[in-house]
């Protein structure tokens, strides 16, 4: 059906645009010495790993993961009932709710963080995990709701009804029918929510009060110490790779 000649061309494009840049990143991370104009490093080593995992940056990795996981978990619980109502098109006029959900996506997260700082300092929340989770929730919750609602609809309701007819209690029905049937959408929502929080720079910078978060810690290294920057960038990429693998595996939707 499709001309075979296009495949190698596509592979070349994919390699130059995607694989090669990332490969260079791995090389850069393990190059203790790589002066221009050499094409390959003069000396390989683990200096980048030592700096990246030591002290503040190691803590940043843990902080970022912790905030992202908490934010996604809370967003999922809050978004679930709303996504059901919106996904099943139960509202006669859903416009205002969609508008409200879209608003935080149009505002820079630095602005959200700056605006919340005013209150969070008074409440003693700046630089704390609950404070950062709340700030990230402002953008993560709309994304999670918007992705999740695409999983609800007449097909899911029909399967659930079958479960009820078979005599499943609401809890068992949720566990045995609804969650497995909506799993690909839930997966997509979780991954997107995690990535939005994980890569957030603005809100974390405004509200972090010096608490190390991975993107904030990484940025100064890009100009100052490329080897450490490359190592941290690989760490930074890990969830994205996991996201890709899981998304491809969840690609075949059961419903």
């Amino acid at each position, binding site marked *: 059906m*499709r001309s075979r000649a296009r495949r190698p061309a*596509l592979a070349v494009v*994919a390699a130059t*645009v*995607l694989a090669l*840049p990332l490969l*260079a*990143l791995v090389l*850069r991370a393990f190059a203790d010495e790589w002066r*221009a*104009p050499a*094409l390959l490093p003069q000396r390989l080593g683990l200096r980048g790993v030592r700096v990246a995992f030591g002290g503040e940056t190691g803590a940043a990795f843990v902080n970022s993961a912790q905030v992202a996981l908490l934010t996604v978990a809370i967003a999922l619980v*809050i*978004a679930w*009932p*709303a996504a*059901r109502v919106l996904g099943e098109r*139960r*509202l006669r006029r859903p*416009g205002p*709710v*969609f508008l*409200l*959900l879209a*608003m*935080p996506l*149009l*505002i*820079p*997260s*630095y*602005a*959200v*963080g*700056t*605006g*919340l*700082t*005013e*209150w969070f300092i008074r409440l003693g929340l700046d630089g704390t995990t609950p404070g950062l989770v709340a700030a990230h*929730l*402002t953008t993560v*919750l709309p994304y999670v*709701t918007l992705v999740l609602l695409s999983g609800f609809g007449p097909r899911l309701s029909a399967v659930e009804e079958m479960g009820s007819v078979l005599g499943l209690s609401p809890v068992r029905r949720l566990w045995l029918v609804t969650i497995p049937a909506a799993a690909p959408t839930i997966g997509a929502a979780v991954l997107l929510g995690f*990535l939005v929080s994980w*890569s957030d*720079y*603005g809100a974390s910078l405004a509200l972090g009060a010096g608490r190390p978060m991975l*993107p904030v810690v990484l*940025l100064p290294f*890009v*100009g100052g110490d490329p080897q450490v*920057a*490359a190592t941290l*960038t690989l760490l930074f*990429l890990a969830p*994205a790779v996991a996201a*890709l693998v899981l*998304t*491809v595996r969840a690609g075949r939707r059961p419903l």
Partner: protein
Amino acid sequence: MRVVAGGHRAGRDRLMLAPAVLTILLLFGGALAGAVRTSLVPLGGEAGTDAWRTLLSDGEFRDAVRFTLRTAAISTVLAGVLAVLLAWAARRSGTAVRALLALPVPVPHLLVATLAVLWLSPGGLAERILGSLPVDLVHDQEGAGIVLVYLYKEIPFLVVLLLAAMGQGYRERDEAAAAIGVSPRQRLRWVLWPTIRGPLIVGCIIVFAYVVGAFEVPLVVGPSYPPTIAEYALQRSDADLIAGPGIAAAALLSTAAASMLLAALAVRVAKDPQGA
């Protein structure tokens, strides 16, 4: 049954929406109110419009607005056009090509910016391989590096949105139109465009708003002057701990207002914001 239980159902629906709606109202509304307050009441001072007046009379802010809007407009238009072409070319492709096209979507912006520095900066890998680059692409005055990073990230994002819209229903409509003798050019106008208009406009609004507001990319690959509006805000709050935050909040509020205004206009143009 639905009609009989209508009132009860509507109440339950509102209850189910309440947690999400109230959370956003509280956090997002709180953030906006906080930013307005910060811009009007300086630390330990009297309420007034000093921050706004300083902002509007600052030449650097005007430069930042011009630079930010230009970078955002160029990135959005180029990403939109290239994404439509790519999606059109890949409309019959299989899962592998689609996955490949979607690959940069989950990669953080900061990572792409780091790659741009590693490859494209003076003395970077591209220069080592090619000998020299004809133009400056990183830290250049025109912001070409910023645009490149955003194109790498946003074209795949828009392609994913467009390919989702160009699914089964579109193929059937297009074949039906071809069968009754509609010319290819007319099919682009009357079948393709109505299919992709909604998601394209929504996607472009998100891209534009993101480019206007984010600052990790310009911090890494942008010129030292002019700053983007977000960079300007950051510099102000770092430079002056008393008056700075007010000016920063005012600058950020003006970008927020501009993005929301633009979104409202674009939704009006698109008429159907959900593209359904």
